[in-house]
């Protein structure tokens, strides 16, 4: 006990001692600079920012960030400056001592746009040495963007101490950006800066290099070649970006079309209500999330994992019901089936509209599906990535199911030759019902995924149905690989046409190309070979 007590007393004494020293009657350069904030003069304020930021005083960061937020109060009469905190407590800016209240005559120190830039740069410099890697990286990037000469010293200081590789690179780039615009930097420094920016190679680097103004001839020449190389690498990256968008669109198309391909392949039935099965899956997700929100908020991140099997069951059950009550009476009359299922789609849409209202419903992204990461020069959002992974997983499972299970074998047999399969003892009507249920269930799963990237409304299915048909017609029937190739080809072709022709014309071009393609291969890319005259 006594030992503790004495330690406390010691520390108290020490702090009192420190405070006594921190309150000198004669002011140092830091205190002088702080007092300048009270002059209400932009050039004085700028000078003050520079001195305070470079002082190394622990109060510098709170002062500058308060200045940025308009929380730095100056009293023109007493020349005293105060930092008011967000919590209402205030300190004296020059000493750090707490004050009871800021005098009424004090007003916030004003800024103009030029000062705001130097405030940002100063803050950048101050946070460059923060213990947190993320903060340092961000600070380095903000210095890179502002490239204020005043930050150069801070950058150099930070660079000397930095250990993290990524922050070091960012600091080097920030330094290069500053040097490129610094009028008295040497030619060698500038050439190095150009090389560093060339290595960075993104849109920002390109903007700096193209906007750097008058420079020595050698630097201009180096910059021109750097611009050329950055532009060509950016062109490659934009191709990669388009390819990624195409893959992403392709995965959505595949997910929507895969169930259709199964029902069409096995039963020769065009299910116009397929889009509505997708919609039902999306609404199942909505209901699951509603229940979780009201009852078990902690489970929200698992909502999709719960929704996937549920959507499969709900949509699959509805599918079996439809097959048993409508479609089985229409076998051999594909055109009539088309009309009946179209009618069914109207009924289902209207039913959902009556139950859930005609407006969009809010379906949230779980935390693991929100956000994005950067890969080289492109940004990849997690929800798109997960949908691609999910689609491929569904595809593989389905492929395995067709290949290795008894039902899969029966389905393939019925696809290839219905009458022969029936003669061999396969209960084709049972296979039909299960196939239709499977196709609908997969559409329901697709709905869960699409609820993450699209509006959940009664018209959700309508917007996918024509595209899914195009995929199936293009890919060919009776072979899931055809659907895969068809979906990704159409997705990628669409995204590559979009920047050239615009979104709508691109889509029209795709439709026209498919119509022409059908001329060459009336049964799609991967048609089943058979000897029947009329399939």
């Amino acid at each position, binding site marked *: 006990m006594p030992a503790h007590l004495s330690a406390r007393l010691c520390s108290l004494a020490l702090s009192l001692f420190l405070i006594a020293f921190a309150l000198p009657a004669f002011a140092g350069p830091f205190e002088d600079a702080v007092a300048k904030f009270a002059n209400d003069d932009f050039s004085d304020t700028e000078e003050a920012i520079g001195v305070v930021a470079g002082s190394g005083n622990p109060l510098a960061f709170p002062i500058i960030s308060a200045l940025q937020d308009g929380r730095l109060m100056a009293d023109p009469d007493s020349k005293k400056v105060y930092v008011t905190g967000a919590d209402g407590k205030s300190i004296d800016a020059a000493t750090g001592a707490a004050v009871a209240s800021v005098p009424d005559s004090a007003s916030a120190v004003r800024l103009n746009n030029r000062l705001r830039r130097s405030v940002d740069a100063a803050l950048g410099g101050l946070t460059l040495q923060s213990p947190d890697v993320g903060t340092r990286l961000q600070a380095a990037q903000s210095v890179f963007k502002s490239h204020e000469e005043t930050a150069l010293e801070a950058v150099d200081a930070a660079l000397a101490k930095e250990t993290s590789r990524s922050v070091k690179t960012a600091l080097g780039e920030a330094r290069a950006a500053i040097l490129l615009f610094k009028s008295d930097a040497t030619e060698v420094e500038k050439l190095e800066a150009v090389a560093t920016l060339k290595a960075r190679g993104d849109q920002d680097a390109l903007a700096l290099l193209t906007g750097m103004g008058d420079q020595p001839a050698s630097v201009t020449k180096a910059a021109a070649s750097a611009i050329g190389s950055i532009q060509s690498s950016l062109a490659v990256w934009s191709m990669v970006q388009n390819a990624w968008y195409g893959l992403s669109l392709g995965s959505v198309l595949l997910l929507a079309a895969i169930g259709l391909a199964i029902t069409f392949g096995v039963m020769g039935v065009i299910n116009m209500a397929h889009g509505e099965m997708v919609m039902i899956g999306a609404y199942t997700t909505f209901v699951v999330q509603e229940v979780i929100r009201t009852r078990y908020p902690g489970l929200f991140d698992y909502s999709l994992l719960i929704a996937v099997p549920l959507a499969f069951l709900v949509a699959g059950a509805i599918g079996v019901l439809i097959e048993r009550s409508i479609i089985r009476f229409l076998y051999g*009359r594909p055109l009539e089936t088309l009309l*009946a299922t179209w009618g069914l789609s109207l009924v289902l849409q209207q039913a959902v509209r009556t139950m859930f209202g005609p407006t969009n419903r809010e379906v949230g992204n779980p935390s693991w599906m929100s956000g994005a990461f950067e890969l080289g020069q492109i940004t990849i959002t997690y929800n798109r990535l997960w949908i691609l992974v999910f689609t491929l997983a569904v595809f593989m499972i389905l492929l395995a199911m067709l290949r290795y299970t008894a039902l899969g074998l029966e389905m393939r047999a019925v696809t290839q030759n219905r009458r022969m399969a029936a003669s061999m003892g396969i209960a084709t009507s049972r296979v039909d019902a299960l196939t239709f249920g499977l196709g609908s269930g997969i559409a329901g799963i697709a709905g869960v995924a699409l609820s993450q990237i699209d509006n959940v409304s009664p018209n959700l299915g309508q917007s996918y149905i*024509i595209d899914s048909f195009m995929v199936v017609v293009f890919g060919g029937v009776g072979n899931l690989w055809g659907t895969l190739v068809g979906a990704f080809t159409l997705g990628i072709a669409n995204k590559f046409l979009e920047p050239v022709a615009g979104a709508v014309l691109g889509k029209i071009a795709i*439709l026209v190309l498919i*119509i022409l393609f059908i001329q060459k291969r*009336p049964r799609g890319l991967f048609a089943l070979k058979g000897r029947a005259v009329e399939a």
Partner: protein
Amino acid sequence: MTPHMLTRSLDRSATIFLAVVAACGILIPLSNLLLPAGSFLQVPTYLVALWGKYVCYAILALSIDLIWGYCGILSLGHGAFFALGGYAMGMYLMRQIGTRGVYGNPVLPDFMVFLNWEKLPWYWYGFDMFWFAALMVLVVPGLLAFCFGWLAFRSRVTGVYLSIITQAMTYALLLAFFRNDFGFGGNNGLTDFKDILGFNVQAEGTRAALFALSCLALIVGFLICRAIVSSKLGKVLIAVRDAESRTRFLGYRVESYKLFVFTVSACMAGVAGALYVPQVGIINPSEFAPGNSIEAVIWVAVGGRGTLVGAALGAVVVNYAKTFFTSGMLAPYWLFMLGALFILVTLLLPKGIVGTFNAWWDSSKEKRTAAASVSAAAEDGVTEPKMAE
């Protein structure tokens, strides 16, 4: 015996149909124009316009029945031909506005002035002349159908594949016509018409005349379809519908027959669209929506596929029901009913109203004849008068 009786019964229903349409085409305009307003027998102008719309739909249904009922081609894009005919007429009506538009430009329609266009696009040339527009009403849908059909039928795209790509065709046109830079008024389409051939489109007399003309077009269209399906060509078409490969093996060039009938049908749909636009007063890209084309197919299915009379009847019945239900408190249930109609007709009434009625009539007649001949045979040809014929 049966084919003979079938043609006779069709003849009878055809005669009744023609008489009813002709009577409507004459009596309704007369009653609208001559009888005093508010009188019990006077048909109000809004009904003339509404029924005129139904008649146009009936022509469209007839054109679908010609290819679907007699040749087995299910087009889910016939609304596109209808809309193209409508746009051709709409372009003529736009050019007739002249300086009476909001911007008062003598040549450019309002939407082009609004979009700061300097001069008329080349494809608008000639549409200030009625004969040219009337020709285009036939040529544009016909040409599209010819090119599309030539590609599709030659490579033997049949069945649902054909249905799907016709749907893609109308969908592509829908997207295209929605664009402002396509030069057809974009989203708003063409509207605010003033005159047709110098007559005010809003005037009662013009509306009555348009109604009579629509009825005339329906009669002419019906006669053309009858002529086609009852000729030797029509027999080949039916053979294509029932057994395409067998017909081909017998030496007929199936694709030429299909192409011919598809093109004729598209021209008819174009005429229907051209008559529709001045009566409705607007044409916009939503006419290309795939849903519209499918709805038109269901009119045919309801009335009776392959009966011609049934197609026209189905169009009128379904659209009357649509107007009736969507205007009342039952409006939210209309889509349920339309959807149920699709399902029930395909399941329970595959021959449609007229087809079922014809089948019932024939079978009852056959029974009566059989009964008559049985009793005649039983009584060994004594005094019993023959019931049938």
